[in-house]
């Protein structure tokens, strides 16, 4: 960090306060202390400095300064800089943030206006997230020093931070005008970076308001950039950033003809861009325009010249050009054969000829496969030669050329119907048998042979899933064969380092998938198969200890059995952090807290929340850099990314679940209130969140594991992801409204006790009604989904994307339980508020009772088969236990806010006293139940395939945490005199 206050002294035309050289020398060591993190010492030095600086008093300073340079001005500047620095130190010191905030507010009032102070102070205000204050400070400084370019630049960037596009536009234009007036070299006014900043601001206004954008802002931005380009072309000073900005605008306006024209006219400015990317852009414009007659020769040339390095985009666009033209001519009824260029036969001829020129070039093979698929789907055909071979024949040919490559299956899976799979397996059956059991028993074969075999095993797996033809026994047998293959081919990877996955790992992953099939097929969902799968995976992990695919399958299996501590450990082992956490935490997010692993959830939730919050705060600094570097496309992309982070589903999910943990573990309403404020800074207030509920972005990555499922039942497919998201979102809304209602209730009660105004204008009854609505909606969505064939099939599957416990919410009738509970508290609340009213005193407030479904659930917990029966873990039971404990915890909390007087009056009015004793009794019963289950777990003689130690540790830990929750609530009831 540097003081930097003196650098504006060179600008003699602009009188302004600046730190004197003498003061700068005094401040320098203090800046060094701050850099070293020695804040305590820095504050001490700063206090001394400020004490000596007699002009530090703000009022005197302001009077003497009058915005000009000179001794008094420089003293004020030095004092401001010292204060800004002190503020930064206070903010960074633990426990002094409140003091820092007050200090900052005082300094804002003083209004520092010199570069150095503002620079340090804005750094501090950024840390404090007071972005609007930075805008205000610089705006005031610019008002006093309107000719200071640096201040004006900082002001534009302050607007960038807050997405204040309108002001950004005005200030950038002001800056451009100023810089043009002071420029020593000649460049058109429309060809300077500040001018582009203004255009960017207009462009972003247009993007924000789509409707008006197309009519007003985007045409204006276009006009501005066209003028800019024309002006600079005259003097041969066209820049890449200039052309690219115009192209961005034209793309947004979907004027691809103009975009193509601009691009080709000014292509020379792209001489530092990779040729392949330059060509790609041209081809994309042509494709958007439908200029297929121009596009076809370009793609053909690219494919012929690039050969094996030819980018897929050229194949893709080439095929699209032919197929679209064919479709158009078909619709118009004209004879497509008349247009030789668009004759599909010529495309096939071209691809086959190119394939023969270079048989190792995967693109041509793959293009033929895709063309076949496209033609079959669109029911297109053509007469003449050469005819495109059948899909089966193309797949077999592709296998012969590339079956020995590891991604073979991945490439062809979209083309593999059951018939095609059959054909391929039939064609290579004899070779497979040889590879499976023949001569390679002792001496491992080549890597190519292994992958050839693996490719067919993958095809077979898809076929088996598609037909659903295998029995439980056949699945087990298949998994054994695959395990043998894993072991047989393992020596091929003996040279690999421990950080690399073994070549044959996929055999073991396939083996574990067949065991999962056997588990799903078995009548009573025999978990022994899951344990065997875990065993297999453990074996493979000895050879590749950090193979994420092995670990990920294991994680899925463990979380399905409710073993959440080991699941969290596996996440750690895979180093899931930063954006990986955002996209993968969904795998465990429903079950961590849902199965009682509160401690583990308490680690994961804040990690993700912190990642998102810090990312959102950091992006603006890179937006500024992007502006300075002229990479406007990246600026727009980063801005959109920032918005999507704020709408991250994973983020709100973690916030809501963490707040629910706050609620059930609560010992202070103050904690809840601060959490509410913290989350609303990012989420917005309750009404806003609810009104924009559908804008949450599904950021779950479903492509984490290898999948061999056919499209219609593929748990990783977009279609299934959508179904799963609808359910998850509905469930989250239930949780959000519930959590919001309870926390508002607690906060307003807390405020009432303190005789301070209510913390929110929202009413409990409004929130309760939102909760009921959300619950009804989610139950309706679940009702529809449970008839879905896929949903039924995936129940209990380790890879199921439907992990939210909505079915238990319905089973326990929690909609009515919570609804009535909240109604009753709202009623009590209202009665309390109108305490002096004689009429209201005569009314008996409604009191919530614990519903029968909860009571009977607690009764069921006492049975000997609860959670554990026949060596099987019932994860639904475990989640039910947690849900009931959570419901009772909320019950205790809400009834505890009744005043003693109210309770007495209710009793006088004959309200059943059991309302005050039931939760305690039920909580005690749950504790007894968890202890019983723990005893059964410890006393059970587990079969050999079960990792008994791991199972005991995990279940005992979850049960203990639920147990602890119940114990704390009993203590809480005692403390509240229940």
């Amino acid at each position: 960090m540097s003081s930097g206050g003196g650098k504006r002294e060179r600008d003699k035309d602009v009188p302004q306060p600046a730190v004197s050289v003498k003061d700068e020398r005094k401040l320098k060591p203090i800046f060094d202390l701050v850099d070293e993190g020695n804040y305590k010492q820095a504050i001490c030095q700063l206090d001394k400095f400020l004490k000596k600086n007699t002009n530090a008093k703000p009022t005197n300073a302001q009077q003497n300064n009058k915005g000009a340079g000179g001794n008094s001005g420089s003293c004020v500047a030095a004092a401001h800089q010292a204060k800004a620095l002190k503020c930064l130190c206070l903010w960074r010191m633990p426990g002094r943030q409140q003091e820092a905030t007050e200090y900052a507010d005082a300094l804002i009032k003083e209004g520092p206006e010199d570069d150095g102070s503002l620079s340090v102070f804005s750094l501090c205000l950024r840390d404090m997230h007071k972005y609007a204050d930075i805008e205000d400070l610089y705006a005031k400084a610019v008002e006093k020093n309107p000719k200071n370019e640096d201040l004006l630049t900082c002001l534009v960037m302050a607007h960038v931070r807050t997405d204040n596009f309108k002001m950004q536009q005005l200030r950038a234009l002001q800056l451009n005008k100023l810089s043009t007036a002071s420029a020593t070299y000649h460049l058109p006014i429309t060809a300077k970076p500040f001018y582009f900043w203004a255009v960017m601001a207009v462009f972003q206004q247009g993007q924000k308001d789509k409707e008006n954008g197309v009519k007003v802002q985007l045409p204006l931005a276009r006009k501005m950039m066209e003028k800019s380009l024309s002006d600079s072309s005259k003097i041969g000073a066209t820049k890449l950033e200039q052309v690219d900005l115009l192209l961005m605008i034209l793309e947004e306006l979907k004027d691809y003809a103009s975009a193509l024209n601009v691009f080709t006219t000014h292509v020379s400015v792209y001489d530092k861009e990779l040729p392949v990317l330059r060509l790609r852009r041209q081809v994309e414009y042509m494709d958007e325009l439908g200029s297929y007659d121009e596009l076809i020769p370009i793609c053909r040339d690219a494919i012929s010249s690039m050969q094996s390095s030819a980018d897929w985009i050229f194949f893709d666009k080439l095929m699209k050009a032919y197929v679209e033209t064919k479709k158009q001519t078909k619709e118009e009824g004209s004879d497509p054969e008349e247009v030789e260029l668009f004759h599909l036969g010529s495309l096939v001829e071209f691809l086959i000829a190119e394939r023969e020129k270079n048989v190792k070039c995967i693109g041509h093979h793959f293009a033929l496969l895709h063309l076949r698929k496209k033609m079959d789907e669109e029911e297109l055909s053509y007469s003449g030669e050469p005819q495109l071979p059948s899909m089966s024949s193309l797949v077999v040919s592709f296998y012969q050329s590339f079956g020995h490559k590891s991604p073979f299956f991945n490439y062809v899976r979209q083309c593999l119907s059951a018939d095609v799979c059959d054909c391929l397996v039939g064609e290579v059956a004899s070779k497979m048998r040889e590879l499976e059991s023949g001569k390679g028993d002792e001496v491992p074969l080549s890597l190519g042979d292994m992958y050839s075999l693996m490719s067919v095993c993958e095809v077979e797996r898809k076929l088996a899933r598609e037909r659903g033809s295998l029995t439980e026994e056949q699945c087990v047998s298949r998994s054994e064969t695959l395990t043998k293959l894993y072991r047989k081919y393992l020596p091929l990877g003996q040279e690999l380092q421990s950080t690399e996955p073994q070549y044959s790992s996929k055999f073991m992953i396939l083996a574990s998938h067949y065991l999962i099939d056997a588990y799903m097929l078995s009548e009573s969902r025999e978990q022994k198969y899951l344990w065997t799968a875990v065993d297999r995976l453990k074996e493979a992990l000895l050879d590749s200890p950090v193979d994420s695919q092995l670990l990920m399958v294991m994680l899925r299996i463990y979380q399905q059995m409710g073993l959440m501590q080991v699941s969290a450990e596996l996440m750690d082992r895979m180093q899931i952090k930063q954006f990986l956490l955002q996209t993968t935490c969904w795998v465990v997010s429903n079950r961590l807290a849902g199965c009682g692993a509160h401690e583990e959830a308490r680690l994961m939730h804040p990690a993700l929340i912190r990642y998102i919050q810090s990312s959102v705060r950091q992006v603006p600094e890179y937006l500024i850099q992007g502006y300075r570097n002229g990479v406007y496309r990246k600026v727009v992309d980063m801005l959109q990314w920032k918005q999507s982070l704020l709408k991250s589903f994973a983020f709100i999910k973690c916030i809501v679940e963490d707040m629910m943990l706050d609620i059930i573990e609560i010992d202070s309403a103050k904690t809840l209130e601060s959490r509410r404020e913290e989350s609303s800074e990012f989420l917005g207030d309750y009404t806003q969140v609810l009104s924009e509920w559908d804008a949450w972005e599904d950021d779950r990555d479903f492509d984490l594991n290898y999948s061999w499922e056919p499209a219609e039942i593929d748990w990783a497919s977009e279609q299934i992801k959508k179904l799963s998201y609808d359910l998850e979102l509905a469930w989250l809304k239930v949780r959000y409204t519930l959590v919001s209602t309870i926390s508002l209730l607690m906060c307003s009660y807390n405020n009432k006790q303190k005789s301070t105004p209510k913390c929110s204008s929202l009413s409990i009854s409004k929130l309760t009604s939102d909760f009921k609505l959300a619950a009804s909606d989610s139950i309706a969505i679940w009702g529809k989904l449970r008839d879905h064939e896929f949903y039924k099939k995936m129940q209990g599957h380790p890879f199921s994307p439907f992990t939210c416990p909505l079915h238990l919410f319905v089973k326990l009738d929690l909609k009515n339980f919570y609804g009535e509970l909240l109604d009753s508290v709202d009623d009590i609340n209202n009665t309390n508020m109108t305490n002096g009213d004689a009429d209201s005193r005569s009314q008996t407030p409604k009191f919530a009772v614990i519903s029968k479904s909860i009571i009977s659930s607690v009764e069921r917990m006492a049975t000997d088969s609860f959670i554990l029966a026949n060596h099987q873990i019932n994860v639904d039971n475990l989640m039910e236990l947690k849900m009931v404990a959570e419901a009772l915890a909320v019950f205790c909390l809400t009834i505890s806010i009744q005043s003693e007087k109210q309770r007495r009056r209710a009793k006088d009015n004959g309200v059943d006293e059991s309302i005050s004793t039931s939760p305690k009794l039920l909580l005690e019963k749950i504790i007894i139940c968890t202890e019983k289950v723990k005893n059964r777990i410890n006393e059970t003689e587990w079969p050999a395939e079960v990792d008994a130690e791991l199972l005991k540790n995990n279940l005992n830990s979850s049960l203990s945490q639920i147990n602890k929750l119940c114990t704390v609530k009993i203590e809480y009831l005692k403390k509240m005199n229940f």
Partner: protein
Amino acid sequence: MSSLRTFKCRDFLKMARINLDPLTETYALPFYLQYYVKWPEYFLMSETPSGEVQGYIMGKSETFRREGESSWHGHVTCLTVSPEHRRMGLANRLMHLLEQMSELKSCYFVDLFVRKSNEAAINMYSRLGYSVYREVIDYYSSGEPAPPTPPPPDAAKGGTGKTATGVVAIHAENENAYDMRKALSRDVDRKSVVPLKQPVYPEDVD
């Protein structure tokens, strides 16, 4: 079969499978954004026709402060290919593109750092024409992230004291690195790749 394009922020949502690979470090957002805004042309993604990320390369071009203009070079910061798409020539293609980019920018050479123990990577780079220019002692420190780690923009101005990476992989022991180089066409006499006889320390590396 691959398709090449420059990186977009939304790619973060699709990078889990590739970044779960233990040799692919996952950094905090600023690390990536720094490269994204400074050297976007060096941040390239390769994806399958269905949009699955196969691999990516992230690099930059810069000059060593102490060595002057003739040290203007391209640098490979991160190269990764998902295990499933290895041995398909993808790494070669990505490296070739980075070299092509460096040629366009008139660099003298391209360099990279690799763990001395990572024989597979060293062999691959050797096949691509890279040779060991120097050995850097304890370049990879125990208990510390693997450098280089560009600072966030604040730190560049001096003084936030924050690191760019946040939580990173902890290595059990210090390890030497090879600084490998390949001369580009501008370095006609291939001066940039003449190996140093003595190992150097991290502080000698810019």
